[in-house]
């Protein structure tokens, strides 16, 4: 177990370094820089600004400086704002985290419910209804659903605030809009895998021993049937909590999503690289958690070669 964790973390660090390197090189290979603009500054001024960020050093020196900072947990200083990348993340991450966790929680519960119901009542109207709901969830872009939710839930019914979420109630609408797509995917994964699981021998044994249908589905079947959902939840959670531009913008939530896009369009290299590293860090972490959860859910996996 410990060996698994250590080796996965080492692999994760390698992926992090690779992502930081690729982003760094990609950004520096591109024409233009963060301080090139339409109206030319005086050459001396331009030079001074660029010197401050060491933009005239050889590339390998810039790279070495950035990576050694990264190794010490220092993400660098924004080139456009008077603050460090760490400060930006610290201030805005809590919003994205709250929204993301609520969205993934909603998606996991609602999606699993739909998928399991559909599998348990395979090829009946329950199945068709549940799967249609899931498919509709996947098919409506949040850019369409979000404004509709604001108009009807917030402006006409007044159930939730239209923007600027405060407290749990304020996050309900954006979390539902954001989570619906994931719920649809989870429902489809859960249905396919539950159908397979419910056909397994050990389920027949459970039935033969007289376990109630409800117990068979929700206790015996669900445990294994949820494995694909669990492995989907890892990357999905990482993606959701590191900021979702569209939903955050529509509902005016001051999360990290804005900085992802803004750092690209304004060429704020340290912010973009920092945010990417932050996201990939979560990705590695949650994928590791998924693997650990796998061993806990299905002991057979713990003892097989998967741990290697």
């Amino acid at each position, binding site marked *: 177990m410990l060996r698994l964790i250590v080796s996965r973390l080492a692999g994760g660090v390698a992926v992090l370094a690779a992502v930081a390197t690729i982003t760094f090189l990609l950004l520096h290979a591109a024409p233009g820089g963060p301080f090139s603009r339409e109206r030319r500054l005086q050459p001396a001024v331009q030079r001074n600004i660029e010197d401050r960020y060491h933009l005239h050093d050889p590339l390998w020196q810039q790279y070495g400086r950035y990576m050694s900072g990264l190794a010490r947990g220092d993400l660098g200083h924004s080139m456009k704002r008077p603050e460090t990348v760490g400060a930006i993340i610290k201030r805005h991450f809590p919003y994205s985290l709250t929204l993301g966790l609520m969205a993934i929680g909603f998606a996991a519960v609602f999606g699993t419910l739909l998928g399991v119901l559909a599998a348990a009542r395979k090829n009946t109207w329950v199945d068709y209804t549940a799967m249609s709901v899931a498919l509709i969830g996947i098919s409506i872009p949040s850019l369409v659903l979000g404004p*509709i939710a604001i108009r009807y839930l917030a402006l006409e019914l007044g159930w939730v605030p239209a923007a600027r979420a405060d407290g749990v109630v304020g996050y309900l609408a954006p979390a539902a809009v954001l989570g619906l797509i994931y719920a649809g995917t989870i429902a489809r994964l859960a249905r396919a895998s539950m159908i397979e699981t419910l056909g397994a021998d050990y389920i027949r044994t459970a039935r033969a021993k007289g376990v109630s249908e409800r117990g068979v589905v929700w206790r015996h079947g669900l445990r294994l049937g949820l494995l694909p959902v669990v492995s989907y939840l890892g990357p999905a959670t990482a993606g959701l909590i590191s900021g979702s531009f569209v939903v955050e913008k529509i509902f005016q939530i001051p999360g990290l999503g804005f900085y992802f896009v803004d750092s690209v369009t304004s060429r704020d290299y340290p912010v973009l690289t920092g945010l990417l590293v932050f996201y990939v860090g979560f990705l590695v972490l949650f994928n590791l958690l998924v693997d650990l959860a796998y061993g806990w859910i299905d002991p057979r996996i713990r003892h097989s070669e998967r741990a290697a």
Partner: protein
Amino acid sequence: MSAPRSLGREAWRRLRKNRMAFACLIGFAVIALACFVGPVVCGWFGLDATTLDLELLAAPPSAAHPLGTDNLGRDLLVRVLVGGRIAIVVGLTATAVALVIGVAWGAIAGYAGGRVDAVMMRVVDVMYGFPTIVFVVVIRAVFDTHSLVSLFALIGAVSWLTMARIVRGQVLSLRQREFIEAARAIGASPARIVLYHVIPNTLGTVVVYATVLIPQAMLTETFLSFIGLGVQAPLASWGTLVTEGSTQVAVSPWVLAGPGLAMGLTIFALNFLGDGLRDAIDPQTR
């Protein structure tokens, strides 16, 4: 006794029997046809995508403008149809690009095996770790391109990863089969085996996944348009129209309703069709 039917024909028959999926296929064809022919027909009635009707700014649906007008007085029906052209072309070309890269990558990795396979799949793993949308955004913003072709190609170039994995998995099992062994025995070159024997046998799965890729590419285009890196004005795509509508939903909801509905229906039809195709090609999953 009836003649034995080919697998493809058998699958087609099963798809026809799945009424909803078949309806979705027809539905998508109708939408696509409307988008490409519709604007011409509307032109005969004096409606086009750019004329400003200054009497009717942001007007609700009426006989003159069935889907209403936007805040510049442009007819939304024609704009939705014209926008659909770009959305559909984006979906199809990006999918084609992803298809070519993904199938080639997966087939080569799976068939070569060993170290080649390991390296090629590590590349896929690393790219998976990267939020693909960031790739597109970075390249479009940094290289400052607004060309449509590069938009299509880029969306395709980041969407092939899952395709490569799926194809590789299929090839791994195909590789062990007798008919591949036989081809090798009669001296067929690896390239010939991959092109003529391996890839054709993965096409069923590939087609199913392709129908899912089209809506994904459309959604990517929408996102890019939302952040201002997609299709540039005066061109309109469903992405730009939905973006426009999303800002006016409080006062003129029809500006969002038209394009939103068109997009939702198209994506729903394609997703449903994908499910139907999967069931038709591999009936065991149902």
